[in-house]
């Protein structure tokens, strides 16, 4: 597959790329310093490299930028303080969604089981709900003749699903 073109990327490169992608360029809205071609972004990328060479951890490097520009410089919200809310809402949403689906299906199923008599035409006074077996047979026969006639007349492309 694409593996024929897979390039050898060092672990350090991967780490740098990940770090760069997590820090925003302050003057280009919404772009990471990895993505932006702004001068400041390039300068910041150099700082990241320097600090990695100096042995700083990811946290320390990110912290350095936050000190200078504020938490807005991080591409994703921190896992503390208000940032927790940002991360918490999606999984909570998932749980709520699953419960909502299950509950809806349960209620629909229960309503179905409750009204055994008038299953199909609950809202319809117009259609006659009773069908005696002889009627069913008679109409089925008529139906079969009609449908068979149509099916055999038309080959394909005429009918639709």
């Amino acid at each position, binding site marked *: *597959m*694409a*593996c*024929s*073109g*897979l*390039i050898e*990327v060092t672990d350090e490169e991967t780490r740098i790329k990940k770090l760069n*992608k*997590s820090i*925003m360029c302050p003057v280009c*809205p*919404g*772009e990471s310093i*990895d*993505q*932006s*071609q702004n*001068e400041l972004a*390039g300068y910041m990328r150099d700082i990241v490299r320097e600090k990695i060479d100096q042995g700083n951890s990811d946290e320390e490097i990110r912290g350095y930028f936050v000190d200078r520009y504020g*938490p*807005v410089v*991080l*591409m*994703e*919200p*921190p896992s503390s303080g*208000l*940032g927790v809310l*940002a991360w918490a*809402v*999606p999984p909570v*949403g*998932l749980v709520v*969604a*699953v419960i909502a689906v299950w509950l*809806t*299906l349960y209620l629909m*199923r229960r*309503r*179905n089981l409750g*009204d055994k008599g008038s*299953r*199909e*035409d*609950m*809202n319809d006074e117009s259609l006659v709900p009773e069908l005696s077996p002889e009627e069913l047979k008679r109409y089925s026969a*008529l139906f079969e*003749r*009609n449908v068979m*006639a*149509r099916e055999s007349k*038309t*080959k*394909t*492309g*005429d*009918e*639709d*699903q």
Partner: protein
Amino acid sequence: MVEIGQVAIVAAFMVTAYAGFVGFAGGALNGRDLATSARWGFYSVVPLLLIATASLIYAFVNNDFSVKYVAENSNLAMPRIYAWVAFYSGNAGSLLYIALAFSIMGAISTKVLSTRLPYTSPYAVGVMSIVLLFFLGVILFLANPLEQLSVIPEDGQGINPLLIHFGMFIHPPFQMLGLISVAIPFSVALGALLAGRGGRDEWVDQGRLWGMVSWLILTVGLLLGAWWAYTILGWGGYWAWDPVENSALMPWLAMTAFVHSIMVQKRRGMFRMWNMVLIITSFTLAQLGMFINRGGPVPSVHSFAESTMGWIFLAIMGLTLFLSVVIFILRYETLKSRGSLESFLSREAAFLGQNMLFLLIAFVTLWGTVFPIFSEAVDDTTMTIGQPFFNKVNGPLMLLLIFMMGVGPLLPWRRATWPMILRMLRVPLGFGILIGVLTWIFGVREPWAIFSFSICGIAVAGILQEWARGTMSRHSRGEPFYQAFPRLLAANRPRYGGYVVHLAIVMLGVGIVTSSFYDVQRDVVMKPGDTEKLGKYTFTFIDVTERTFADRLEETARFEVWSGGRSLGYMYPYRAFYPEFRMAATGGAINSTLLEDFYLVPSEFREDGQAVFRVLVNPMVWWIWASCPVLVLGTLLSLSPNSRASRRRLSLSNLSKESSGTPISRPGAGTGS
């Protein structure tokens, strides 16, 4: 000429107001002539807005800087053909474009509705007129593109340089059309509710038709936007979870849910209330999209149509939502389901789950988009929600969606039993696992990547399994292979059209997953004569050519590139600087193959002759763009109508005439109908 355009807009406004009022009146009073009058009024808006548009474009082409909008969005140096782009590149002009496009689409749909849903259509026209009236009102009173300046400037400010690209001829029109097109199925649905005719699924066929048309336009708009970002913005990516991008994605998600669940209503008369809720949600999200596009509450790379009047869009969105909810509550009694759920394990239930998933993704996207504002308001610190957040949260959800897409069509309607399901899932699941193993063997180690490929494998196998079995079964009944498959397709167009669309989504998914995990990027400093390598590509920087144009300074680098040992010829990445805008635009040079893209973009040309380039290898990007025509084809196949021959008026005598037996005897049979 400008005055003519202005008069045309005023006339359009008045006749639209008439159409709205009289449409509702005609519906309520059952006045067919009133309804026809309203309809014709709506039709007449189209030529009026065409005249207004023509006058604006005329002003652009003739450099009439007395028109404020022309002065702000073009200049003498702009090539004439870009008048089309300049027309909708600014706020006021884009409003006129939207009004025009909507009036055309509305007129077409009104014509169709008048024959298919004659008693619902007056109300639908009423709703469409109100929507159009809003846009015309904003144009007339807040942002008139034909407004004139008292002091005529010598030259205009010029068009934003980022817009000078082929993609800008089609992406924004498509995108804007997509957003406003949601109003059409919305009008049909709300019109049906207002008319008290929502309860027997009368509107479902038209709702499905216009819903799918709208969905198609939205999808193409999104893909075009991604393609434009990839080829012109020069950062090597195609989707940044930017607020404007998200605002287009959210209505798309809701509409995708809608076009699926409307099928359940068509088939079984279920989900009547849910579909109303969905279409109202879709339209609200579309309006939110228009707000975010214009209001600029959240900073975005995109905000070229920025203005402070976004808030009026927000207000109208709120009003529409409020009114829709009120109407829904008043009429919801009519929306009780006909059919009922027979099992948790059924396609109906799966559709509900899928719908919820789409809405969840839309909600999460919305949450991430507005969180910065929220954090600012609450804590006084703005937090950024960027790509990493969205990828981490939406990625797995979308993967789950693709899984459902693979498995869902295999579930039967009404009820399924576990043995049946397992039997149908055997092959796709097995194939998915096989793909997972194969990717491992080929060296893929990222767990999410392996997982994603497996799921795509399941989806593909499910589709191909049915195609193969269907073809085989027709073949066993006497048809040769080359006939069996096309006829299978033709005989079941909606179903197989849907499969084709799903295949396109798998192509899209594979392209996105591979390019997200396995893109490689390097920044290199080179001077002419230098050669560098990235992967199997070797590239030599030959020289830089500088060209000065009236509005910009362009520096184009020439590279000679080899892949392995094979020469790929020359590539010309460039960078253009627009002094008036203080903006630089880059044009990446891309060599694209089925397997990967080699991407060269200049970051900086230095004084000393050296230049900084960004080089990328993006695997499988071609598949993302290739999915678009497949998707369009699938949607068109799914929408293709029944042949007229098979439509005959339903009546017993017709049936008994067709059959070979004796007609059913009826009491007091007359001459038949």
